[in-house]
């Protein structure tokens, strides 16, 4: 761990562009960072920052072990990975929701308040990339379900009889509709977070505090800009 340099882990995929924009706006010039170049490691000597690009699900691990001092990652990943890292700031981009969804034809009956009655779904199979989130949600309802861990295309599982329902993240709901799935219960909302290694947060406190403060101010200014339009 070089004390002068700060290593920041950014996730491949949809959060990368926003992450790069945010960091560039607060003076960490990293517009040239992108995931298509096959380069996974960028040195930014001017900002005394190193950037590493990795899979979103691995970011909490990199940060927990201190291989990266800071990371940007979705709250969804953070909840599922459950690593020992400091969650510093809600960056408020990459909004998505965790939902329970079922095939349109087999949704459960509704309560009088309009919510679906999930109580008939005990011991059913739930396909998901997030077994931990799914398990927690159902057990808090006093229910028992069987999560089936998949790594992608969760929507497929109910169509072919692998599972009765799915727990997945949705942003617009388009994928659900296309696969004739209906949301039967919201679980929680997630946005991207700035996370820090426990030791880096102490040993590189001033630098991390500076970056956190700048990212926070940058978000506030953005809100003001939108309001003044």
């Amino acid at each position: 761990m070089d004390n002068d340099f700060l290593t920041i882990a950014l996730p491949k995929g949809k959060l990368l562009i926003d992450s790069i924009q945010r960091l560039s706006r607060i003076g960490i010039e990293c517009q040239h960072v992108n995931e298509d170049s096959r380069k996974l490691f960028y040195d930014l000597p001017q900002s005394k920052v190193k950037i590493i690009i990795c899979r979103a699900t691995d970011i909490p691990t990199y940060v927990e072990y201190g291989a990266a001092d800071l990371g940007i990652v979705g709250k969804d990943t953070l909840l599922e990975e459950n690593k020992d890292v400091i969650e510093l700031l809600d960056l408020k981009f990459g909004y998505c929701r965790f939902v329970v969804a079922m095939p349109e034809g087999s949704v459960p009956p509704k309560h009088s308040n309009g919510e679906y009655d999930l109580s008939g779904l005990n011991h059913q199979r739930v396909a998901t990339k997030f077994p931990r989130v799914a398990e927690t949600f159902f057990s808090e309802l006093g229910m028992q379900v069987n999560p089936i861990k998949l790594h992608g295309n969760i929507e497929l599982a109910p169509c072919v009889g692998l599972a009765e329902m799915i727990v997945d993240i949705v942003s617009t709901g388009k994928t659900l509709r296309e696969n004739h799935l209906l949301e039967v219960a919201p679980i929680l909302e997630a946005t991207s977070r700035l996370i820090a290694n426990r030791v880096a947060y102490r040993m590189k406190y001033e630098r991390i505090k500076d970056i956190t403060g700048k990212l926070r101010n940058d978000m506030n200014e953005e809100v003001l800009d939108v309001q003044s339009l």
Partner: protein
Amino acid sequence: MLRTNLGQRIPEGMRDLLPEEIALQENLEREVLVLFQQWSYQKVLSPTLEFTACVQPDVEQVDSLYKFFDRDGRILALRPELTTPIARLVSTRMRGANLPLRLCYGADVFRNSSVRYREFRQVGVELIGADQELADAEVIALAVEAIACLGLKNFQFNLGHMGIFSGLLLEAGVEEGFRQKLEEALARKDMVGVERLVQQSGLPERVQELLLRLPHFHGGEEILDEVLDWSSLPTIREAVESLRRIYRYLNYFGVQEYVSLDLGILRGFSYYTGAVFEGYVAGIGFPVLEGGRYDSLYADFGVPQPATGFAIHLGSMLELFPLPSIAGVDILVYGSDPQEIIRLSRALRLQGKKVEMVLETIDRDAAETMARLKSISEVRLAGEEVPENE
């Protein structure tokens, strides 16, 4: 019976230590224990197995214990740490000992969840029966010296106090449910969750601001004045002044430059009650040393008394050090007559030499080659020379 594939592996989080590796760990441990003894700490050892009722009495708590049953069906656990077993030991067999009591240990602990090692060496101290700030300072100064005596350069200690945050919650009169949620979020180090909880709490703005800033208060003595400017609640003032006295003592101990004040060191769901501290070393992503005051633990064993201490996760930081070369054998003894070989080897060992016996009959050339390969400087013939080309 031929071992299966499983029988040739070791459980996750366990490891074998080869000669250089165990030598390294023992060397480091010896350095630290000599230091502890210089500070008047006496070594004790508690058993590897304890009743779970001792080390984790709260059955609701999610724990990381390795558990077993004894023959009477009672639940046993491998010790996950030494502080609680030592509290049991002091409260039973050492009850009535002269206080304050200074004890130290070096032992393996077992945690069925650790990120890296599930069995690792800990060395630490407990200072029992002393509530003075000087006792806190002594233990912190010893912690700094222990890390320094390992030869580490790039390290840092952060010192906080449990009483400031809990004092604030107490004085603000927050309801139990809120307090619990807040402590849960803090234990998870989920500052976004803390922020959300506080903003939705409806607490006075001043209290909200303080709750949000406290976990990030970090610096020298000036932050203590800053806290007092924010709040003059008696419990907070008491904790702040206590921290100030400890911090000043650290200056007399000559270790203050290594210690930052950090009110964000808050340990949820732990036995700590007062000053708490952590040690960090560049290159290791988690604290290598944890300690603090725990004034209520001894009451749980029926002998209420204050105490403070720390533990170094020695086994988790071995990778920071180069492996030592192991002092070799002095003399290789060879010959053709076992009786002569044994007699000469015994005589040399009585003189304090490290001696290796050649178990088969070889000639001088072969013995010299063997000695060179094993870095043994001297070769001695026992009895008569083996005839060449026998």
